[in-house]
């Protein structure tokens, strides 16, 4: 069993909140991903069993959304917004500098698996650009130095 008991209990609690069980599916995927970093094929099969679906139906949902992954991921996801308002305030320059700082190209992982660096579309922080989302936190009003030190502080 890949999905742990505690997570299964949480999923069951979520299912109880919706008129149809499947309403809790995205929530369940978030929970599974929080534990393992991604939703593996085995997890997908177990989720399928829990929700009375086919594994392929679970996988197609995962593939549709940006925030779900079906492969193992780096420890931290760092996304710099490169949509229009952020680009107008230098987010693309920032991103290029972070690429250089980490020695990787976007989208890509550092060799030690600590950081995945990518770009994302509008995150709702347009007035505080440039900014980045790291996992579930926003870091706004960035300059290059600030951004670099935030990245460096990310633990392994």
């Amino acid at each position, binding site marked *: 069993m890949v999905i742990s008991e505690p997570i299964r209990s949480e999923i069951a609690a979520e299912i109880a909140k919706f008129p149809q069980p499947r309403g809790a599916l995205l929530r369940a995927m978030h929970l599974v991903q929080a534990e393992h970093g991604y939703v593996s*094929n085995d997890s*997908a099969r177990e989720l399928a069993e829990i929700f009375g679906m*086919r*594994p*392929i*139906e679970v*996988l*197609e949902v995962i*593939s*549709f959304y940006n925030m779900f992954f079906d492969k193992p991921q780096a420890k931290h996801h760092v996304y710099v917004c490169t949509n229009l308002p952020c680009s107008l305030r230098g987010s693309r320059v920032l991103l290029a500098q972070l690429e250089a700082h980490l020695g990787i190209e976007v989208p890509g992982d550092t060799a030690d698996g600590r950081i995945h660096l990518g770009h994302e579309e509008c995150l709702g922080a347009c007035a505080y650009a440039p900014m980045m989302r790291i996992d579930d936190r926003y870091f706004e009003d960035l300059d290059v130095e600030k951004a670099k030190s935030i990245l460096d502080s990310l633990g392994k």
Partner: protein
Amino acid sequence: MAKITVDGNEIEVEEGRTILQALDDSGLLMNGIDIPHYCWHPKLAVDGSCRLCQVEVEGIPKLQIACDTQVKDGMVVTTANERVRRAREGVMELLLVNHPLDCPICDQAGECKLQDYAYEYGVDASRTREPRRALKKRVDLGPTIVFDQERCILCRRCVRFCREIPKTGELAVFNRGDHSVIDTFPGEELNNDYSMNVADICPVGALTTKDFRFKIRVWFLEDVPGICTGCSTGCNVHLGVANNKVYRYVPRRNDEVNETWICDKGRMSYREIGSADRLDRCSVRNHEGRFESTSLDAAVEASAARLAKLVESKGAGVIAGIASAHATTEDLFVFRRFLAALGSETSGVAVVRGDSDDILVREEKAPNAAGARAIGFADAKGVVDRINSGGVDAVVMLGHDALNESLLGGADALRGLDTVVVLDTHASELQHVAHVMFPVRHAAEKHGLLVNAEGRAQRVEPAVEPAWEAYSDGEVLAKIGAALGLEGFDGRFDVHEVSRELARSNLAFSGIDLDTVGAAGQPLATVVADSPATGGEPR
């Protein structure tokens, strides 16, 4: 009923149907009123994503998709004006932006809806200069299907089919936008009893069958209407014929029988027509016990001589007849008359039974079991019992289904018999025990009727001509009957005459004439149900 006007034509349609359904119901869709479409299929749930079927509906500002617009009394639809033309052009051009230029190597060419509609409704020249997306081109999707992701136009018919018909749901659309791709779950495959139907419904060459891949260009094929002989459902098919050879079966639509589908086994059963084990000569067992090829006349003589001798010495009561549910109704009618005229009282039809499902596949694995029963053949169990208890000295047998473990359980059961005369399409164990063998025509090689499990008489016609001397069962029996001097046998067999005679003499077949049964078949006057063991009772 509602009256709607389409392109100035008033049509009566059923309320609650969509425009496409209504036109399909009335037989006008793509047959007088052309509304090109991809994602819609008459037998699948509505999708509405291809956007090709847009039409103008009076009173509604935006163009509407005909597949999802319900008809209302008084609705006025225009399918061919500038606005609609431009909309179709838009869809066609955008579909071709990423579609690979594979026509020269693509099996679908010649029966491709992208080609057809691009020609009819598309733009003259491609305007795109961008590289097309590169995806997987030869995906081994499973035992029967090859998938080319680049050719896919994402109509999602295949996804819906797998979910709705076999209900196995092996396919899904992954990702989104122009990164969308259809695929299976990693490590799983498209593998169900109806998988090959996806190649039919795929409008382009994205899904093709491994069986047909690269075999022949479809424009060389003639489509001959016929019936699958795999089970008693009698799915309607088109035989794809070229060079006197059947290259494939594809399902032929019949909403009363198989809708637009056929099971994989049935579809593949075309191979039995040209298989290497077809009987291709008359044979008689000589004094040393070996089979010798002979002429038809010699084989007829040999059969008649043996049977006559038995009749004289022991009476016709020791002669049994085993009919085949693969033979046509006309053949079986002649056989019945033959046995009656001979004086045989022991007869039955041998039917092999197997698995069934609640989609198309039925238990009885032959196309004319109901026809055999309607003609008066009971199940062959009775015959088999008599053979096993030693009460039979001769058997005239059509086909070799009687060898099945549920009946004779092998040819050895016939070893002690004085005379075994076999009329068959394919070689079998009977070669070891038969005294005379005649090669007979497959349903794809003759005219005749086959009655399916629901009592529908369906027509077959010759699609190919065997390369050897082949005969219908009725022809052979007519000659043996004449050689025996049986009443009513003059050696001739005219299938149309026989059909009319059957209609005259058998209540179930009244009004059923081989020449007038249409392409969709005709229900028998009284329906004989397929029952598990002993054949049905006329209702």
